[in-house]
């Protein structure tokens, strides 16, 4: 059984991505007791799946390492992975949260040696790479996963593979009898940092993501550049493994659209500008990136980055929302159809690979939120006095890039600290 001490002076942080980690660490480092609940088997969330950050083009692993080290060193912070909040009741200063912990089938003895993965035969979809490849059903989610502990996929429980994993483990870390746990925790304040998910590209019918292998999403493209990713860091297109040198980016794929997401997702312009540098980085002067856009939203200092990309002769900009994509059956190239806005020229242009700059869909379940909260039309949590001691952090509150999510999460931590300080004063 998971034993956790929690009181009305505890802060519960839901979601362990960059926002949740930031809020949890900032609060814990002021001396508050913090419990961080993360649905995945590791903390770090979507930033751990990025190759580089914009605008500095540095690696997210750097900041991730710092945050993981901070969390290891802080005795005030408890991290629960593979855990979800199913219910919250009470009011500011006195909440009770119900938490469901899914079995990992691997206990704290795990050293991360990987012998269980070698023994297991079944391969399952690799969610870390957005299902672009498979991995063993006993796996470490990614190289830097924290906690550095393997996971057994529930699919092998009760099969020979599970027994093989158990037999292979020299540290008695595989525990096949682990069960789902449901626990209750007290908390004075809640920081809700469940982040976002890429908008489902299958819903954008004219772009044929579901029909054409060479139409992928920006998050998948990001994984392709990672040396440990599905293509080993090479830009190879999915249909035939051919080098993708002529890449098109389609902006607002699902964002700013009454049929899809109402809001501007804010990150996708910079993400595509950044990804165009990957293409140039990979192929030099053989590279060709074409960005189809309505307007480029590179705000503040990002303008400099935009100008830098504009100066790259291998990157073209076409002011047009692509109307539809049709596959050239002979070579597998997607053909983009549309009319541009600078001269109204009709085009039908083939590219080797098409990247849909899909937007941010908030991971806030409007219909099944565990407690009464104000959620706006776009699905983000609105700041409201009616939310009591529940504070949104990062992209649960709005479409934010990493920089702004971290700032926002720090603010949310402060709000939560204020609530538990009031509790502390009242309790004397």
């Amino acid at each position, binding site marked *: 059984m998971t034993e956790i001490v929690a009181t009305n002076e505890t802060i519960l942080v839901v979601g362990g991505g960059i926002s949740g980690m930031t809020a949890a660490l900032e609060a814990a480092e002021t001396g508050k007791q913090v419990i961080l609940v993360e649905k995945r088997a590791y903390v770090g969330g979507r930033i751990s799946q990025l190759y580089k950050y914009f605008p500095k083009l540095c690696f997210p692993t750097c900041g991730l390492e710092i945050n993981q080290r901070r969390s290891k060193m802080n005795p005030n912070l408890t991290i629960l992975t593979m855990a979800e909040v199913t219910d919250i009741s009470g009011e500011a200063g006195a909440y009770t949260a119900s938490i469901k912990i899914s079995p990992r089938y691997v206990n704290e003895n795990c050293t991360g040696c990987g012998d269980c993965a070698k023994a297991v035969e079944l391969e399952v979809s690799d969610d870390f790479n957005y299902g672009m490849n498979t991995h063993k059903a006993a796996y470490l989610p990614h190289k830097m996963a924290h906690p550095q502990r393997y996971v057994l996929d529930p699919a092998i429980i009760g099969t020979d593979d599970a027994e093989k994993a158990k037999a292979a483990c020299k540290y008695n870390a595989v525990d096949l009898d682990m069960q789902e746990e449901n626990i209750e925790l007290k908390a004075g304040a809640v920081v809700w940092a469940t982040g976002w998910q890429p908008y489902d590209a299958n819903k954008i019918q004219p772009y044929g993501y579901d029909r054409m292998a060479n139409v992928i999403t920006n998050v998948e493209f990001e994984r392709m550049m990672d040396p440990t990713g599905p293509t080993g860091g090479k830009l190879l297109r999915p249909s035939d493994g051919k080098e993708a040198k002529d890449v098109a980016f389609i902006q607002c794929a699902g964002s700013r659209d009454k049929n899809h997401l109402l809001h501007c997702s804010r990150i996708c312009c910079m993400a595509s500008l950044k990804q165009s540098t990957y293409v140039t980085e990979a192929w030099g002067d053989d590279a060709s990136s074409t960005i189809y856009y309505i307007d480029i939203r590179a705000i503040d200092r990002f303008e400099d980055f935009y100008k830098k990309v504009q100066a790259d002769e291998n990157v073209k900009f076409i002011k047009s929302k692509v109307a*539809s994509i049709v596959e050239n059956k002979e070579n597998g190239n997607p053909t983009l159809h549309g009319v541009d806005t600078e001269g*109204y020229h009709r085009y039908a242009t083939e590219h080797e690979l098409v990247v849909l700059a899909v937007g941010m869909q908030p991971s806030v379940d409007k219909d099944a939120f565990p407690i009464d909260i104000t959620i706006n039309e776009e699905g983000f949590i609105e700041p409201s006095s009616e939310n009591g001691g529940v504070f949104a952090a990062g992209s649960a509150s709005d479409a934010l890039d990493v920089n702004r999510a971290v700032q926002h999460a720090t603010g949310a931590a402060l709000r939560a600290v204020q609530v538990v300080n009031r509790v502390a004063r009242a309790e004397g």
Partner: protein
Amino acid sequence: MTELNAAMVERYRSNFLKEVEANVEEGEWVKMCMQCGVCAGSCPLGNAWEHTPQKIFMMVRAGEREAVLNSDAMWMCTSCYNCIARCPRGLPITHIMHGLAHYAKRMGLAPKEQPTAKFAQLFWDNLVKKGRVNELKLGISLYFMNGFSEGIKTSLKMKDIGLGMLKTKRMSPMEMLGGHGVKDSAGFQKMLKKAQELEDKRISGSTD
């Protein structure tokens, strides 16, 4: 220039967008266009038009009154609704195009030799006589729309279909003699007259 057209030019001066917003059906949506161009690319007949919807909307905003109202674009719309389905801002593009066509017609600026505009007039003239469309007469007037010799050629080409329709009682030659209409013909004419009055009042009476 028709009298009404001259009055409208005088009233709105250089503000054609305002004129469209006040007088064209769904015209108030024009300013919502963000020029993404997805309508233009989605139009199945797009390459056959002089101007795409997105371009028409920009021209409205730029005050290109003559060019917009003389354009054949809105007459080429087949109402497939692809543009409405895909417009990220939810503009009722098909309806705006029809609204503009109607307004151009009212102003006497619709392109004279544009086939769909011509056929629309034939349809209207046919309909208002009896309150029902006389399909036989409408078909024949369509055949002869572009002159006598082309009419004869088309009629001969369609002969077998016509005979087949006669045989299966899908067409009555008696319709050529007057044809059937609505029961209350006088009432129907009165209704049309009233509608025309309201429409005239709406256009000439509307203020800025």
